[in-house]
């Protein structure tokens, strides 16, 4: 091998090794940072991994928001009309957080089955609903209707009628 070729070989190998290392590192980070989305139905029926950060989305159930006076901690339920998930969060809430509003909470499940949110996202446009939430709601609603037809009591709770379709039909 001529010196020029040898040098070129070294350069190319270094390049390949560098890019390979970078890709490996990046893909590992990618694996660790994938956040799966769960609708309340999936959350309750299939269960969620305990050690992973996930996202849960739906509507804030009417009458479910509780806050001790002067406290920064809030508890509420997220619903898709079929099932509900209890959520707790400490901190400043987004502007559009209120009952009946679509939200996505990021966090982990706690030991008591409560979802411990570290971040709450509510969209900044009242007509706009995160697509995941819209789909989760649609699926949840279908399920609730089916169950009602089969004669089950609507165990989704009291919120079945409180949020009309028009509340989220505008934006997607």
């Amino acid at each position: 091998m001529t010196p020029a070729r040898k040098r070129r070989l070294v350069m190319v190998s270094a390049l390949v090794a560098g890019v390979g290392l970078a890709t490996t590192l990046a893909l590992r980070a990618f694996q660790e940072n994938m956040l799966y989305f769960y609708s309340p139905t999936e959350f309750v029926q299939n269960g969620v991994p305990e050690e992973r950060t996930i996202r849960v989305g739906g509507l804030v159930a009417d009458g479910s928001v509780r806050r001790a006076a002067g406290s920064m901690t809030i508890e509420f339920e997220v619903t898709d009309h079929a099932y509900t998930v209890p959520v707790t969060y400490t901190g400043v809430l987004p502007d559009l957080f209120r009952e009946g509003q679509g939200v996505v909470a990021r966090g982990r499940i706690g030991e008591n089955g409560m979802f411990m949110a570290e971040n709450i996202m509510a969209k900044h446009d009242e007509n706009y609903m995160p697509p995941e939430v819209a789909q989760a709601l649609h699926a949840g609603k279908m399920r609730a209707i089916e169950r009602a037809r089969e004669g089950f009591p609507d165990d989704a709770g009291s919120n079945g009628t409180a949020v009309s379709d028009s509340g989220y039909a505008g934006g997607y």
Partner: protein
Amino acid sequence: MAPEIGQVALVLALILALIQSVAPIWGSFTGNRMLMAVAKPAVTGQMVFAAVAFGALTWAFVHHDFSVSFVAGHSNSELPLFYRFGAVWGGHEGSLLLWILVLAIWSVLVAVFSRQMPERFVARVLGVLGVVAVGFLSFTLFTSNPFDRLIPAPADGQDLNPLLQDPALMFHPPLLYIGYVGFAVAFAFAIAALLEGRIDAAWARWTRPWTTAAWLFLTLGISLGSWWAYYELGWGGWWFWDPVENASLLPWLVGTALIHSLAVTEKRGLFKSWTLLLAISAFSLSLLGTFLVRSGILVSVHAFAADPSRGLYILAFMGIVVTIALALYAWRAPAMASDAGFKPLSRETFLLANNILLVVATLLILLGTLYPLFMDALNLGKISVGPPYFDLAFMIPMFPLMLLLGIGMHTMWRQTPGSPLWRKLRLPAIAALVIGIPMPLVFYGTAGVLTVLGSILAFWIMISALIDVLPKVGPARVTRSHIGMCIAHFGLGVMILGITFVSSYDLEVDRAGVPGQPITYAGYEFTMLGTRGVQGPNFDAIEAEVEVRRNGEYVTTLLPQKRVYRVQRDPITQTAIGGGWRRELLVSMGEPLGDGAWSLRIQYKPLVRYVWLGTIFMALGGLIAMTDRRYRLARRRETEPAVSGSSTATAGGQG
């Protein structure tokens, strides 16, 4: 009346764009000079009609014509005049109209400043720009007509989204679009070169100032968007790795790579087909960004238009444009190989590394941005990719890039002798270590490895970029290109300094603000004195008065607000910022906790301003570089060889 005029103007613009896209290209192949000469009047007419349409929509906003559906949806009789102008691009339809106008203006500028280029080449460039214009004009007319009437007309409009009622947002979309669309010019130059089947130094010299211009506007547009998100969204972050932000960063990264590879193509006749590929990619990514934003498939504050037919149209348009461009590329590019060699220690090597690293960064961000969409489309679950991935994926290529940048600026074409280079860089390297290592430790006590590394690299780039423009230290004669390059790189160093320190030492807390009780945080005492009602032109607000003291000494008073806009009724948090070059303090209001208490979010952001200051230097550098004398030289011979002479001194080279 104005909407009808606008409507007719749009149709006429489309017809002219059709002529502009067919006649000149046809003429360029048949050698028909008459057909080629059609390009310039067609493009001028198209711009005039686009401007008339844009003016008509602006007129409708200014005069509150709520019979126009788009105006009714994005304005209100109480909306201040200033925001009525900006409301024109405050929604999907109007922003497309802005896109069309910007493209038409770019095209006219190309037509005007193309005197030194061959007639056939100009005809092809304008023809390609015409094709792009046809795509966007028909998209607007057939799926998103801004002049659609609303019958009966509502008494009042639904108002502009309150978040968009902000001075920065008035200028963010135009700047961004000027950048996005500017890459269409580089794209058109690349396609024209592929149609010619030939690319030379003159081609690169024509393309460079246009690409730099697009790049500098995109830089400012992204920066302004980041600043807006920082103070208006009230989250205090300056970059969220939001898919829409990524959509603007991707063409920027490829555009940056393109600027550097164009330098090699101009000076050394190398990287020819690679340069063409980058030019095609930069514009394709601009189109991808448009698709992502306009299709509404992204979860984002920008996702205000979610209509499947629109997404499909842009996807189809993008598919056609990219497929044809790449097919042409595959057919013609292999013939453009060049055999000029270069040594490992040469400017070419460093620019090659720059390109590889920037493309790696682009691909990693593209992966994180598109993967969730593919997963969703294939019904494999709904996921999103968290910011930590992007942070890491971006840092991996950026650290070596920054290290190499400081050296690469001082290398020469073909071959650089090692020892003079070392003598030149010895001092900047030592200075970077001496300033960079202690700085975080002295001012902030502790420092992680990444912080120290970032701090060293920031000073390394800043000092290395400045030594050439210092009198007596740098070369005796420096070109504008070279000065621009130094200033832009210096700006990058400034930005890295800001990013490093704000990411390492920012603090954020949510606390209950009780009137009269100080909250001690980040070395400051924040005391909420009370709240009061405030009235704006189209909103009512509750304003808190927060006094900030440091060790008992008065610093500033911050007035965060919770606004409710009268039409849209949504509460909007207005963060109050105590600005400064050493740190910024942010206070925003959460919700009432009872007894006059409010939840407050307090943030401490050290050196955050340097993030945006750096981008201003970068854009300024671009501006200086693109006004270099040699871009204005009279027309050169068409047969000029790709390898031009100036490849010896550092001063002659522009990285």
